[in-house]
């Protein structure tokens, strides 16, 4: 079976999920991102790599932060950017996803950044676009959010360069989290020896251990001696679906407080993909504390997204030459 993300020569054609990407490509993305971190600090925050290209942010599900960072990333690469909240336009008129995409291709979009509430939506679009079009998954249902997973490992690498000697805990709603799935694949592929997930059984997917993680239900045991704590957002609707009794009880058992964080290594860092629910999954003193790297995550997110777009555009140029 062909890997839909790679072209015949094994180069990145779409970024749909971290799963299925070789370590070499993940490292290539992270290393390329490294070179883009400096761009933001220059007076002129632009490089001309995507000049003349049109990047289309196609958001079938609402998002502010992810859409904004993708927009900034594309603009810093000198691309023309269109952002569409399809939720509020065509889809409500009954247009299918493919019709929307085809129309934008007819307007000569080169790259799609797609967010959709259904798992597999980005794969579906990638399967139906012509070969010169690139698709970046900006989150599909519970499945994948690869740039988030990659920016998280990028951030970790910045603070803890030796990935082969780390213990990482991911805490919270693993079941519904595309971020958690992407983080797990990124960490395990890059050789992090111990990845833990900490959650009540209601928020863990079936056979999660087959993804190569150690399962903990108790925060105290799970956080012991970890180098990195990755918190997940808990959505309010989980309280109504018999997943959890209340946000208060959740905070008591799984909320990250200074007390619980003390069980981790003294130099452990804390990540959160945002937006945070303070007092539900994370205490403000932790979110704003010295161990938090939550804002650097956002900054690095732009560099990582620039790297992915540049690599996709680059693979197209190389492909055209051959």
């Amino acid at each position: 079976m062909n890997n839909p993300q790679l072209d015949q020569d094994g180069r990145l054609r779409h970024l749909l999920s971290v799963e299925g990407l070789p370590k070499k490509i993940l490292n290539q993305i992270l290393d390329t991102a490294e070179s883009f971190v400096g761009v933001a600090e220059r007076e002129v925050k632009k490089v001309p790599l995507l000049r003349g290209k049109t990047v289309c942010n196609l958001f079938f599900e609402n998002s502010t932060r992810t859409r904004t960072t993708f927009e900034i990333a594309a603009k810093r690469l000198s691309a023309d950017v269109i952002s569409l909240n399809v939720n509020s336009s065509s889809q409500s008129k009954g247009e299918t996803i493919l019709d929307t995409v085809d129309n934008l291709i007819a307007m000569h979009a080169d790259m799609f950044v797609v967010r959709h509430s259904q798992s597999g939506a980005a794969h579906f679009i990638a399967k139906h676009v012509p070969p010169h079009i690139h698709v970046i998954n900006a989150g599909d249902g519970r499945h994948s959010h690869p740039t988030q997973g990659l920016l998280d490992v990028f951030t970790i690498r910045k603070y803890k360069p030796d990935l082969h000697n780390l213990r990482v805990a991911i805490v919270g709603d693993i079941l519904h989290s595309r971020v958690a799935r992407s983080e797990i694949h990124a960490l395990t592929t890059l050789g992090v020896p111990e990845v833990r997930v900490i959650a009540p059984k209601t928020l863990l997917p079936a056979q999660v251990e087959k993804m190569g993680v150690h399962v903990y239900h108790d925060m105290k045991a799970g956080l012991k001696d970890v180098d990195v704590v990755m918190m997940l957002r808990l959505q309010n609707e989980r309280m109504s679906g018999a997943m959890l009794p209340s946000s208060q009880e959740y905070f008591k058992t799984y909320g990250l407080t200074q007390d619980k964080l003390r069980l981790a290594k003294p130099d452990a860092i804390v990540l959160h993909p945002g937006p945070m629910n303070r007092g539900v999954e994370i205490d403000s003193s932790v979110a704003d504390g010295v161990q938090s790297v939550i804002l650097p995550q956002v900054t690095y997110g732009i560099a990582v997204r620039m790297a992915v777009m540049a690599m996709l555009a680059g693979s197209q140029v190389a492909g055209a030459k051959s």
Partner: protein
Amino acid sequence: MKIHIKNGRLIDPKNNIDAHLDLFITAGKIIAIGKMPTDFVANQTVDASNLIVCPGLIDLSVRLREPGDEYKASLVSELQAAVAGGVTSLACQPDTDPVLDEPGLVEMLKHRAKQLHLAHVYPLGALTRQLEGKILSEMGELQEAGCVGFSQANTAITDTQVLWRAMEYAATFGHTLFLHAEEPFLARDGVAHDGEVASRLGLKGIPSAAEVLALASMLRIAQETGAKVHISRLSTAEGVAMIRTAKQQGLNISCDVSANHLHLTEHDIAYFDANCHLKPPLRTQRDKEALSAGLKDGTIDAICSDHTPVHDDAKLAPFAEAELGATGLELLLPLTLKWAVDQHVELVQALAHVTKYSAQILGINSGDLSLNSDADICIFDANEYWKVGASSLKSQGKNSPFTGLELAGKVKTTLVHGQIVFQG
């Protein structure tokens, strides 16, 4: 019309025949096997050299999409698909629009099917009105109109008291209930087996327990009421074990498995292949092996195609939003043959699961090549490969998990009631 089918390898599971024997047909009936009757002069001779001659296949679960969903498929297209697949009799599900819960609708369907002179159609009536699981349908009237059994299609009766009454009432008159075992609350919004693959892909799962729980209630109520129950499309290893035990206890039950589930697992979903969005969901390798073993040891009686033609556009969506179902009528024979080859099962035994046992379950006088029986016959080349795809399928539903695959087993001639209705 007198037809002579010569030089074929005759396989008749019911009479346990696997031998090179000619068949002689007069006025729709088989009048001689092996030796030509002295006064027989054939109007037509079918040369079946190097071919297998077997009873026409009987499919226990088909959606014809008529009435109401003709944009997905029509009676004509699907009955042509049936005979192209060697299927000469089929039971169709009542989840049409309107639902098959009115005798008039059933009579109309039977009448229209009969006029087409293709495969025989045996409707399964809706067990409850509108398939709502609340009020029993008029089973007696529906039976008179032509229903051979009663089904809830993919919907469940959540109220166990209604299920109990339905079984009691059906048992009173000896009707067979065709039930699909899936507990609807556990299965709610699920689109794939709740396991490794669904977890990785972020698809909402349907746990095996959904089948096990529903099956436990059905078997228990069947035992209490003495109803004759056929479990449609079993999918789990635990389900197979439960049916095995229930049969040992003497319950009046039978069951089938879909050809898809004999060959595919959750891993075939791969990168969200919407053709693998099926009901029940494709499960694990362990389940697949248990289904196969169950079929071999007689726990599972029959193989059905679960033919569910879907419009191409309805599959053009992300996995969970893509309409469920796959075409199947033309794949039932090749997938049964593939199972036989893969599992080292004799053809005469494998074909019994799509002829002899299916006929018994429907209570119809068909599925064999006995003397004086109706000449519903399938003649096929077991060694000819063909590629599954839109151009090779007659069915209006072109979606199949097997698209692009080459399968062995090509139907050459199909006879219904002694008339040649398909030649390929």
